[in-house]
């Protein structure tokens, strides 16, 4: 019984990694605003004009574990993920050069896999389970607004 408990606890320790993801837009050549104040010495506002486009970009640093594979398999590295936001916003700027980019919110989840769950799922799937992953996921949601459109 004691041996079983030790094995289970050791299995539970699988996945004790540190994951970190950063969202920034250092390569975007236009303001990417957060909050409700759009300019220096400006006042908070609830209406930014007409929304002409929206964006939703996820950045993650996570790993998928497979019993069949010898090593962990990274889904998306932080460096790749961080570039996604720059690329998507740069594309939007090219399509809407006069629009104002505003981030509505930044959502995030951070969690670790429990070794026991992973182990059991791996047993059931015959070692092919790729459903248990762990890490951090960050999602940036926002829109492109144009002044002078139909205001709400």
């Amino acid at each position, binding site marked *: 019984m004691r041996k079983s408990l030790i094995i289970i606890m050791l299995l539970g320790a699988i996945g004790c990694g*540190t994951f970190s993801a950063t*969202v920034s837009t*250092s390569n975007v050549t236009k*303001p990417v605003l957060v*909050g409700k104040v759009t300019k220096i010495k400006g006042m908070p506002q609830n209406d930014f004009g007409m929304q002409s486009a929206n964006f939703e970009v996820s950045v993650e640093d996570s790993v998928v574990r497979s019993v069949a594979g010898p090593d962990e398999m990274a889904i998306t590295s932080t460096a790749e993920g961080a570039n996604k936001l720059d690329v998507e916003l740069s594309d939007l700027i090219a399509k809407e050069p006069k629009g104002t980019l505003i981030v509505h919110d930044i959502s995030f989840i951070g969690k*670790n896999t429990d070794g026991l*769950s992973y182990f*059991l799922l791996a047993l059931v799937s015959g070692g092919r389970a790729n459903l248990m992953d762990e890490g951090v996921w960050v999602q940036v949601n926002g829109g492109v607004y144009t002044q002078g459109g139909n205001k709400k």
Partner: protein
Amino acid sequence: MKKEAMIKPSSIIVIWCLCLLAGCAGGRGKITFDNLKYPASMSAFIYGDGNEMLSKGDLRVLDTFRYEKRFWGIFWSGIPLSSEKGIAEAINRKVEDAGGEGVINLAVTTSTCGINSLPLLSFLPVLPGCVNVKVEGEIVKTKTKGSSYIAPNHSEGLSYINIDEFVPKGKIGEAIAKNLHGEN
């Protein structure tokens, strides 16, 4: 005769299903920055009071800030326990203290907490998990006209100092003194 305890196969299946459905300890949250009193941009650009686009060259970086907060959750990160309250207020305070007008290069970094990795215990839905969030940025102010540089002036000597004239390095103290005493 000792009666052996028998676990019914159906119970084993139920327990196994419960184990499979169990998730992972963690935390979740959302930041909106709605209470910010100053403009903040995730890029190196920001809009001036005349709606002109200002780059880092048009701004003075007064200070940097870093704010960290831990977001908790239970039921395997499904139920958030923390709010974003405090983040915007902390940034407002830092900008006011620095005498800034806005923030550029704002970045948000999230990372996992060690408590999420507790062996076996992280299997329990009521065990709180968390995610660390760090918000960083540069506090900036617009450069006032002429305040950031002194243009060269090739006239000989120094009869007066104004912000557009060149002052040789060794003559700065003298020039300031002359300016202060109105010797033009």
